[in-house]
């Protein structure tokens, strides 16, 4: 579907992509990276809109450097940012975009009606888009990427700004784009966890370099960490450290959670990250907490964040591997 070979993109002051070689098979592929990791740059290059500094890339077997127009005819793109004029209706807008993809007027109208229905927009499609909710806007953005029945869609952060329910619906929709519509998907996100459920294959990039490329199954095998937060007691002024020690003694792998931004924001470096090895891990944690007489503030299953991929010892060996899902 997509193949890149030591693809690099350098700007005067930044290297956006650094010798990226990756092979992406048909299916739903997640492209994960922090902001500025090079995801959007990669998409631009894949659409043939921005020349690579060096290296090669091919989409659907077409060279991005020379056959950009042919690629763009067969590929759909959903940008990350807002791109909808508020004063036209979804129908008018998507019809126009279908025509820009080369569809004759009648076909454009039919495809628009079909596609909007498939993404879940009904009567509201005749209303100006200015009044739409974020979820509806995201659906229109997805519809305009699908309206010309591409073989591949590139979705840039499609779940951005959605509430948890909207997020789940969007992820379900993305899954259906592949299973029901037969269209391959490349979807970017900075949340590895949400892609786990949707994608067959996940590619992680950071600083323009390939960090990891593997099927989702491999990711889920190493999944499973538990965030534990405890109170301090008089016997243990630093309850977190005490628990950490106790759990380590019980043979669990424990890390303090300094790095993850969402916990730091919650105001505590008092969170421990415990690798889950089996169901008994939960019992061990519970017992350790009660034995120490500490108060358990929370104990929650964490989804993977990119930070953990850095920590995974195996990631260095897997760099560059590109087994299909």
């Amino acid at each position, binding site marked *: 579907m997509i193949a890149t070979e030591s693809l690099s993109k350098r700007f005067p002051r930044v290297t956006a992509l650094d010798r990226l070689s990756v092979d992406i098979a048909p299916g739903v592929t997640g492209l994960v990276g922090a902001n500025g990791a090079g995801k*959007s740059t990669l*998409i*631009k290059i894949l*659409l043939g*809109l*921005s020349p690579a500094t060096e290296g090669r890339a091919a989409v659907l077997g077409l060279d991005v450097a020379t056959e950009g*127009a042919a690629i*763009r*005819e067969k*590929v*759909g*793109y959903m*940008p990350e*940012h*807002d*791109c*909808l*004029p*508020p*004063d*036209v209706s979804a129908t*008018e807008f998507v019809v*126009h*975009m279908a*025509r*820009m*993809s*080369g*569809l*004759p007027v009648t*076909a454009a109208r039919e*495809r628009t009606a*079909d596609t909007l*229905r*498939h993404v*879940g927009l*009904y009567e509201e499609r005749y209303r100006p888009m200015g009044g739409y909710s974020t979820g509806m806007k995201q659906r229109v953005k997805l519809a*305009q990427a699908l309206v*010309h*029945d591409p073989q591949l869609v590139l979705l840039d952060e499609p779940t951005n700004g959605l509430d948890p329910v909207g997020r789940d*619906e969007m992820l*379900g929709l993305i899954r259906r784009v592949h299973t*029901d*519509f*037969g269209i391959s998907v490349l979807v970017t996100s900075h949340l590895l966890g949400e892609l786990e459920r949707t994608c067959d294959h996940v590619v992680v990039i950071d600083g323009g370099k390939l960090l990891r490329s593997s099927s989702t199954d491999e990711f889920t095998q190493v999944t499973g960490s538990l965030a534990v937060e405890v109170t301090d007691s008089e016997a243990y002024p630093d309850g977190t450290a005490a628990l950490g020690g106790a759990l380590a003694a019980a043979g669990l792998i424990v890390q303090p959670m300094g790095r993850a931004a969402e916990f730091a924001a919650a105001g505590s470096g008092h969170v421990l990250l415990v690798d889950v090895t089996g169901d008994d891990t939960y019992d061990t944690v519970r017992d350790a907490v009660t034995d120490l007489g500490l108060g358990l503030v929370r104990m929650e299953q964490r989804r993977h964040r990119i930070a953990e991929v850095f920590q995974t010892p195996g990631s260095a060996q897997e760099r560059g591997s590109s087994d299909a899902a």
Partner: protein
Amino acid sequence: MAPAQDVIHNIGYRNYAGARLGRAYARRALFSQSLRGAYGLGRSAKSKVLPMTLFGVMCVPAAIMVAVTVTAKLSKLPLEYTRYAIVLQAVIGLFLAAQAPQSVSRDLRFKTIPLYFSRPIERVDYVVAKFAAMASALFVLTATPLLILYVGALLAKLDFAAQTKGFAQGLVSVVLLSFLFAGLGLVVAALTPRRGFGVAGVIALLMISYGAVSTLQAIALDRDTTDAIAWFGLFSPVTVVDGVQTAFLSATSAFPGHHGPSTGQGVVYLAVLLALIAGSYGLLMRRYRKAGL
């Protein structure tokens, strides 16, 4: 998805096996959409009001002139074909100021541009389509009253050959004017995603330059430096068109004291006019180089 909607979903996805007409078709589609949009067609009723009103204002004087010519049995039209657009330049300016930002600022403001460029359509197609659409909209605005005058003149049984010649010269003149105004208007409008700034910018460009040139020309006339009058005319879009048609399309100059450019100066005028059109196109291409994703 709610269960009730599943029934509809079960129709299933249909693949599209029909025609994909490619770049040239997309360019034409964008052209016609932009041209219609300039008159508010295919848009809300509210956005039709201004362009349609201005279109009416452009045509009414021509209709009145025809009525006067026919009833009073005049031997020629009250106004030359080539003078019509110059006299009504304020209306043309307003139309351009309102519609050029409508055509390009919205795509910039709402960031729709990347959706175009992620399709077979390319930068040059976008610029050409928008430019041609704006020029065509202005041509419709300026040529329709000329057509009314021409038909009226024939109804009044004025001299066919003279009227046809005048009409043809008028058409050439408004073609040049349409391209010049469209280019300048789009360049100004594309500078800013804010529509209001675009409107103000276009009005400022046309009015201030025209005001300044007229003032300088009036002063030059006052001091009897009539040669300078023609040169000053190079610095405002309307007077450039006026100069070109005075030199080559046997129009009567609207310059003070009718001191229009000579044929030699006319060549300079024509060169400036063509350079402005080409320059506008170049600037637009430059503007959209970075406006991709």
